[in-house]
């Protein structure tokens, strides 16, 4: 049985001072985790902001959770089922982690004190911040702040979760922990995960959308994207100047990603990152790898 569509975008266009951030995008999302990949400026954050109802498109139609958020009532109905972690999120200076998430819970209409506090403790525990919840947010590390931001997005187990680079600055152990949290969320909710971490997408997502210059370059299963790189990744003793990308690995071999097999090379299994590099070509190199 096909899961109900929770996000429907038709002809979404957004321009900033003449620069097209999104160019007539058509996308639909169902429950599950979808990764959004793309170089800086590809339109990922703009897309999430539009779905989060904090930015209006210049053209096109947005339907979220079966509603068109065009009136205050419809907007409120959608937002009640929405969890959003923006790419950049500041925190008021005086707030503790608990205080901030509690404030956000009030904004999300948790008016009764006891259940609200229980819920705040639950989401802080989910992101492993229970022990530092009483510390001021400004004293927390960058990774911990990202987790505070994620915690508020998890409040109430929303049906639609929009996460813009949630694992940036998070240490590997916490990243694995967060993957568990997100994978559970993806069992019942629609989770859109914008990230530069291809390994997160490979580990978590059953679908990936690659955006570039405001357009969808790929939309499909993660393994289908990986399959596009099959037979185009080699390990060799030397870098191949003709390769799209080449780097020395920890084993001393050079991983060459390109169309032609370097001499004396052996073919190897591609990763999502290889496929992404091949899909976007030089643009991916200049914006992702080089960065």
């Amino acid at each position, binding site marked *: 049985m096909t899961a109900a569509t929770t996000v429907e975008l038709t002809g979404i266009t957004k321009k900033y001072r003449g620069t097209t951030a999104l160019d007539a995008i058509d996308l639909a999302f169902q429950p599950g985790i979808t990764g959004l990949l793309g170089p800086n400026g590809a339109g990922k954050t703009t897309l999430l902001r539009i779905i989060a109802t*904090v930015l209006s498109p210049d053209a096109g139609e947005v339907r979220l959770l079966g509603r068109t958020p065009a009136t205050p009532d419809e907007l*409120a109905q959608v937002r009640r089922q929405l969890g959003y972690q923006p790419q950049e999120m500041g925190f008021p200076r*005086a707030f503790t982690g608990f205080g901030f998430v509690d404030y956000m819970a*009030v*904004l999300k*209409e948790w*008016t*009764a004190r006891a259940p609200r506090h229980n819920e705040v403790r*639950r989401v802080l525990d989910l992101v492993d911040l229970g022990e530092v919840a009483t510390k001021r947010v400004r004293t927390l590390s960058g990774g911990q702040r990202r987790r505070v931001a994620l915690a508020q997005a998890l409040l109430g187990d929303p049906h639609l979760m929009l996460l813009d680079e949630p694992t940036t600055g998070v240490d590997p152990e916490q990243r694995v922990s967060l993957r568990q949290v997100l994978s*559970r969320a993806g069992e019942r909710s629609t989770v859109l995960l914008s990230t530069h971490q291809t390994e997160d997408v490979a580990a978590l997502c059953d679908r990936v959308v690659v955006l570039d210059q405001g357009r969808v370059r790929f939309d499909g299963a993660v393994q289908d994207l990986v399959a596009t790189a099959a037979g185009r990744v080699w390990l060799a003793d030397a870098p191949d100047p003709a390769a799209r990308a080449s780097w020395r690995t920890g084993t001393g071999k050079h991983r060459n990603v390109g169309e032609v097999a370097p001499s004396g090379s052996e073919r190897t299994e591609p990763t999502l990152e290889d496929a992404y590099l091949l899909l976007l070509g030089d643009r991916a190199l200049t914006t992702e790898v080089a960065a």
Partner: protein
Amino acid sequence: MTTLVQRAEAPARDATLRTLAGVEARRYARHPLFLIGVALMVLVEVSIANGLASGTGDAQLLLVSDGTTVPAFFLGVLGVFVGYRLTRSMARAGEAVEASPADGVTRTAALCLACLVPGAVAMVWLAWNYVAMAVWPGPYSGAISSTNHAAMLSAGVVYAVGGPLFGVMVGRWTRFPGAGLVASVVLVGWALLSTSGLLMSPSRIGTLVHLNAPFTTWVSSDSPTAASWVAGGSPVWYLVYVTLLCGVGASAAMLHEAWGAQRSRLVRIWAVLVVLALVSLALAAASDPARILLPRG
């Protein structure tokens, strides 16, 4: 397996507003500038009480009609900063806040309700004034009618609420750093300019110049050695005027976040309040401009 969160149906907007207003009120009450203002106000009032106990005439004069400057400054002017900072502070969390079901009007209304915190402190100040007047009745007490006297003192409470409301409004409509400071300077400058009305000979124009400011003092003197006097005009209508200005500020703040039918409704409310405020100011200035002499002693 996913943890299912037990949650009741979405509560009424009023319940969210009440809860949010409580949170904002606690944030206001804990703000360092507010606490400093209250501490300084207590110090001034203790000093006045000492003056009253020792029978100093100036202390009685301050208590009778000019004491409104105490809450006006320590709660009102400092409150501009507090209201502004509270409003802007959540802007750091920007889009996460914006994407919540509590819309901008509700969030702003909660901030406006939190401005009742300094008002509550000013009510205590008002009560203290009445107690002090009962304990240490001064030679000026009978010079002003009790209604006008009550209106003058009550204005102190309105100043304490109005300053923070102005700060919330500035916080909603401006984004540049230092806007709170600029707003305070504008407010104080407006109040100081209005005192030029006290330098004019008693007239309705002079009264209008004096009373148009949202903060004002009622007592002045032609020279340090001359008798003091209470300015002309109607303190009662002035009280109505500054109260309506609070409504103008609050509705203007909420207007920033409103859209659709809600915005149209708020625009109408704002326009009605502006008209009523102007009418009240006109009535305040239209009253007898004659001054009441308060012989020094």
